[in-house]
């Protein structure tokens, strides 16, 4: 029982890191990043490959964060030139391109065979049953740290500029600030967080393959943001908990109600998510847990 709860919390926290990064990019800067899973994948593979080569996990995680952040730099340059919807399509393409590279460059990533036997975090520190708990604790610490950082950034002068960019880019430019630079930094920061999440997941799962990094993950994070409310960290947290909670909780629904086949249950799960998404956008634009309807754009 605890083991399963720990697994769910680990899953929630990994999504939460991803959502935190995206919240920074979209919620506070207005960058429509639909390729978040690409940074997640870069982080996972960087950390896993380095660790498999014998690099200590803390260093490989740092490298994962750094490389994911760096890979966002060129996208940031593009983001300067493009409006929201274009950036959505470009970033989506970016994440698909990353996945294809992971599939194809077998010399590096073993392609579709995936990477088994990735060193596990805290392996050998305690008895195997306890490592999950340690990973959970680490993730909580990382999440608190990251959310504190994001919170701090938003409250900083830099944060006020990026929020101002979201609301009125022209005005920011008129004040002599260069929105481009701020956008790029925000994008890189969010990407770095996603990369860290990827690295942590790789050392938790111990097996990764390119099929894990499909755009659906990006959409799930977006859904979590929209459900919870984009504009506040509280909304981000609640949205993520709600989404992962529902995805997992729906497993029990079938145990209880019965009469629905597994195939239909799987369809039903996606259906509920789709319809919930529509309804929240229609009837509660600030998100279920958001309180600030100040965004009226």
């Amino acid at each position, binding site marked *: *029982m*605890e*083991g*399963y*709860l720990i*697994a*769910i*919390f680990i*899953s*929630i926290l990994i999504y*939460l890191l991803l959502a935190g990064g995206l919240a920074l990019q979209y919620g506070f800067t207005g960058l429509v990043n639909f390729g978040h899973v690409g940074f997640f994948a870069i982080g996972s593979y960087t950390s896993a490959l380095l660790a498999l080569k014998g690099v200590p996990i803390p260093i490989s995680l740092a490298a994962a964060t750094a490389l994911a952040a760096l890979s966002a730099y060129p996208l940031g340059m593009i983001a300067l030139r493009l409006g929201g919807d274009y950036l959505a399509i470009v970033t989506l393409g970016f994440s698909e391109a990353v996945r*294809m590279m992971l*599939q194809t460059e077998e010399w590096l990533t073993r*392609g*579709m*065979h*995936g990477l*088994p*036997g990735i060193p*596990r975090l805290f392996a050998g520190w305690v008895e*195997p*049953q306890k490592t999950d708990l340690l990973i959970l604790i680490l993730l909580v610490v990382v*999440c*608190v740290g990251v*959310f*504190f950082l994001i*919170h701090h950034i*938003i409250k900083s002068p830099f944060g006020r500029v990026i929020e101002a960019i979201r609301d009125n880019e022209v005005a920011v430019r008129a004040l002599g600030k260069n929105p481009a630079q701020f956008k790029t930094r925000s994008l890189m920061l969010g990407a770095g967080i996603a990369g860290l999440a990827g690295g942590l*997941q790789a050392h938790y*799962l*111990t*097996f*990764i*393959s390119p*099929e*894990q990094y499909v755009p659906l993950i990006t959409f799930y994070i977006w859904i979590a943001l929209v459900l919870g409310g984009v504009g*506040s*960290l*509280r909304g*981000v*947290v*609640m949205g993520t*908990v*709600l989404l992962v*909670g529902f995805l*997992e*909780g729906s*497993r*029990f629904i079938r*145990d*209880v109600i019965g009469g629905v*086949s*597994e*195939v239909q*249950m*799987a*369809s039903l799960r996606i259906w509920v998510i789709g319809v919930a998404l529509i309804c929240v956008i229609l009837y509660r634009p600030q998100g279920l*847990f958001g309180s600030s309807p100040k965004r009226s754009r």
Partner: protein
Amino acid sequence: MTQPMNFSRRGFLVSGTALAALGAFSGSAFSQSEKVFRLGALNSITGIGGPYGPYMLEAIKIAVAEVNDAGGAAGRKFQLFAEDDQTKPEAAVLAVKKLIEINKVEAVVGIWPSSVGLATMPITNEANLITMNTCGAPEMLTENKKGLAWMFQASNAIFGSAFAEVARQRGFKRPAVMAFNNSTFVGQANHFKESWEAKGGKVSAFVIYEPNQSSYRTELSRVLATKPDVISLSAYRPDATIILKEWCQSGQDCKFIMPGWTANEDLVKALGKEATEGIISISNVAASQSPAYKRFAAAFKKVANREPDIFAAQSYDMVITLALAIEATGASADVLAINGKIPSITSGNGQAVTSFTEGRDALRNGKPVNYNGASSRLDFGKHGETVPDFGVFDIQDGNLVLKETIPGHTPA
């Protein structure tokens, strides 16, 4: 925005309590006497495994019903808990944890893709669970560190070299290789190439294609341009349907060698008899001839309205094998003891049996048994792998006709 972490903590508590409540509920709803064996089915209901997973689950249900109707294995009835792994490793990890922690299963059967097999193995090993899968990745064997995993499907290596063997025996000179880009099929394709070239041949074209396309004509033309006399096509049904359709329309003459789980009655139904005529379909041999298969197929048809594919047959065998192992160890045996019995009830000189009741009766009379399943003879190697004999079928007028049997062997 104020104190976001406070809220997150409360959120965790809320959802945690909710889950705990659900867990307790499902636990109490299924509380039972000690005479059950809690069996987990982890199938790929959605995702790429969608065409196979639901039928594997049906097969598992059929086998469970068969065992339970016969009074259970060593008196223990199976209680089945099914989960969808979405053909995704990270979803599978959660699903398997749920099976272990909430449903307290003692074995997990029906794992289809190697990615799920590899991702869940550390967890099931840690919990000392028997797992039975249809994974074909060679890494499954090396990762099977506790000997608790049983591969009911021949590995890619064995399949690939069997394909090459068949191509040689049939006298083909210029084979080409086309494969779906995933771990299983790329492995198969590589082993075909290796094993063909090891005996001095050359492969005329080697094309790995991306799935989910609406046309494979360009990839196919690339292969057909080299004028092969046979194409080893490692594909699933949707892409195979498109490729064969396009090949048939191209009018170029050549043969196909395909895995049995793709080249079967369903493919004929999708494409018609003309496009499938002469396809060489290779699968584990036991199919169609063995009494176990016939009985299973009849039961399966009643439920699913179609012939079972090889994965369904393997899933059925998983449960029966497990049941016989439990029967052989006795009602109070633990999982490790049951696991230890699996090799002895599937191979050796015991009485050959083809059903649970037959095996159970023999075991109760103190005789050793050798279960020959619906999917193969099921003789496991030392890493838990099956090395089945392969049946070589030709599709003639829409029917699979068994031509010959070739022994499978692990390539050097």
